[in-house]
């Protein structure tokens, strides 16, 4: 089956340009590359989902401190393993070390932010720079160690998938799957805690423990992603997909799902791209893919996207111009605003010299009646709430009931005719 698919892929005309990229996307580029791409995709999904909860809690940048804090752990694990006579590049060992120091860093952030007067952002900055600096010191120590083997540790800074061992690829795929599984198990309490902490507490959810689980998941995603994305940029996988997903929905549960999908998509495309270009670090490719998705969401998402907002704004602007123009026509005032006149003319409501057409006179009298009803409604304490919905466009028929309007009309009195 795989062979057939591969054959099809290779005989099909390649519109994407690079056949290797397409093969990587469809998991046909060797066993290791497939495992890594698969693991990266799972990791991306887990990161997008976990990151959404951080984003809701407005603590996105805590992950930056956690990821930078992994460096001394990696270096220390290397030193310990070498001095005990093992291979220093043993990935499980390095990841265990990184998890320990990431936990220390996280604890330091929490402690500084809760026990001293320093704010959380200062604590984050202090921890990330100091841990990272100490890690750099340890890296230079490793470079001078006699049993060097140091090649490879730099790969943790920016991520690399080239030359990965089979066991490492399995570890990453398994880690990604495990992270995703844990996210699926704990999604309910995390959702409640991040969306409405008070309600969550009232419903019997232990907030501290949920926070701990959330941070533990962030740590897990960071540690598993170190090798692929690198510790400097892993934070992007936790931040960018949720921010992009926010444009697509106003509902928290959907944002979480969309963020997972977008994170998985970024990691999948990015890891495939890096399989084609083994000399380039993987992390930046994944991050730029995620940013492209974010930019597309910012521009084109329905509802909150910039394009649709601009269109809505324009529609609203034209509506106000036409309505105000009609009010002027109805009261016999001249229209000086060229845009208003152009819009009225385009709709056949006025002539070029600013005189209303027959259609225009009819529409103008309706608008004037509507304005008068609004004005009366504003003066009526009983209708105050409804009157607050006046925005210069909404018809009062859309806000009040028929008998309320009859009541208003009774107070306004009979029609008095429109000034020509």
């Amino acid at each position, binding site marked *: 089956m795989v062979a057939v698919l591969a054959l099809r892929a290779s005989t099909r005309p390649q519109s994407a340009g690079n056949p290797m990229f397409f093969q990587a996307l469809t998991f046909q580029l060797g066993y290791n590359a497939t495992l890594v791409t698969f693991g990266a995709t799972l990791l991306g999904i887990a990161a997008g989902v976990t990151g959404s909860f951080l984003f809701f809690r407005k603590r996105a940048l805590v992950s*930056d401190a956690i990821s930078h804090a992994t460096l001394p752990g990696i270096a220390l694990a290397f030193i310990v393993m070498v001095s005990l006579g093992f291979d220093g590049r043993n990935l499980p060992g390095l990841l265990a070390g990184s998890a320990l120091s990431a936990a220390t860093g996280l604890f330091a952030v929490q402690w500084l932010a809760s026990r001293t007067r320093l704010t959380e952002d200062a604590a984050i*900055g*202090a921890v*990330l720079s100091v841990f990272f*600096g100490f890690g*750099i010191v340890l890296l230079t120590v490793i470079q001078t160690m006699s049993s060097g083997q140091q090649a490879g540790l730099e790969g943790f800074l*920016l991520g690399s998938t080239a030359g990965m061992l089979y066991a490492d690829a399995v570890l990453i795929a398994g880690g990604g799957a495990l992270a995703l599984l844990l996210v699926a198990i704990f999604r309910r309490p995390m959702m409640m805690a991040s969306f409405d902490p008070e309600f969550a507490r009232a419903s019997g959810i232990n907030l501290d423990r949920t926070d701990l689980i959330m941070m533990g998941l962030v740590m897990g995603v960071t540690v598993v992603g170190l090798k692929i994305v690198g510790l400097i940029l892993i934070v992007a996988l936790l*931040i960018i997909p949720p921010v992009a997903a926010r444009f697509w929905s106003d509902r928290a549960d959907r944002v979480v799902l969309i963020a997972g999908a977008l994170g998985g998509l970024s990691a999948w495309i990015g890891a495939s791209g890096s399989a084609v270009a083994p000399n380039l670090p993987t992390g*930046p490719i994944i991050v730029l893919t995620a940013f492209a998705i974010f930019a597309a969401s*910012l521009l084109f998402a329905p509802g909150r996207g910039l394009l649709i907002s601009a269109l809505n704004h324009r529609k609203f602007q034209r509506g106000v111009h036409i309505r105000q123009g009609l009010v002027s026509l109805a009261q016999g005032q001249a229209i000086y605003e060229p845009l208003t006149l152009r819009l009225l003319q385009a709709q056949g409501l006025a002539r070029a010299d600013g005189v209303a057409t027959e259609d225009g006179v009819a529409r103008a009298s309706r608008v004037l009646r509507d304005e008068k009803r609004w004005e009366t409604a504003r003066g009526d304490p009983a209708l105050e709430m409804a009157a607050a919905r006046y925005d210069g466009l909404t018809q009062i028929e859309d806000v009040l009931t028929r008998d309320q309007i009859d009541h208003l009309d009774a107070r306004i009195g009979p029609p008095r005719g429109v000034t020509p």
Partner: protein
Amino acid sequence: MSGAEFVPLSLSPLIIGCLAAVACALPGNFLILRRQALIGDAISHVVLPGIVVAFLFAGTISATAMMLGAAAAALLAVAMIEGIRRFGRIEPGAAMGVVFTTMFAGGVLLLELSDTSGVHLDVEHALYGNLESLIWLDATGWASLFDPTALAGLPPELFRIALVLGLIVILLALFWRPLAISTFDEGFAATLGLPVSTISLGLVIISALAAVAAFDAVGSIIVIAMFICPPAAARLMTNRLGMQVAWSVLFALASAVAGFVLAGYGPLWIGGTNSVSAAGMIATVSGVILAVTALAGPERRRVT
């Protein structure tokens, strides 16, 4: 140690480290108080693509082009963060995270894709600089400090960072009052008629300037550490702004000197043969200072 060894090899990196540390710590005080500490983090990440693009345009490592490129990148980043925050209605921390990771990733890829093998420009250098290499070969001993021809051979980074530090000190002295008022009570500053958003942007630009000049000499890790650690430690020592700035300068100098000495000579004391990264050690020492003040500083507790 004799002057003949110390002056050419250690004096100029030590001075550059001190100047860079103070130049970053000074604006850092205000960033911390304004809860904008991570602006320093963001700026030091986005400087990389600016420098790479400047290099691609200029074709050589020219200090002016790099400074311009980095400053342009910092301004672009601030504009993008503001844009995402306003138009996308995204909280500032997340907007910052989106922008600086993307720009850093772009810088790294540009760097890897372009042919920079002939010049000294790579990711590691950008991250932790190379303070130890800024040596003063023309010096022969302490007497060289009074020898004009030897002084002309000082590394150019020293003059640049000194110039930037001087500029920062002058600007801080000139705008101390408005800056202090708008930092502590932006609403009050606005009612006084102070241009609060201009002051805010000015602070970011000053920070970018400090970051770029320091980045050029010592790499981004010192920049982030010095923006945050000395002012944060100083904040735990005192409640007065003037005293806080003084403490932060003291802590920055202490970190730079102790870090440099520990990195260069510490390993020798414990029987090692090679020195370790001075930039990393300076950041580490600043962290130790912060830890000590967090445990024992007189004003460490939250005001209730």
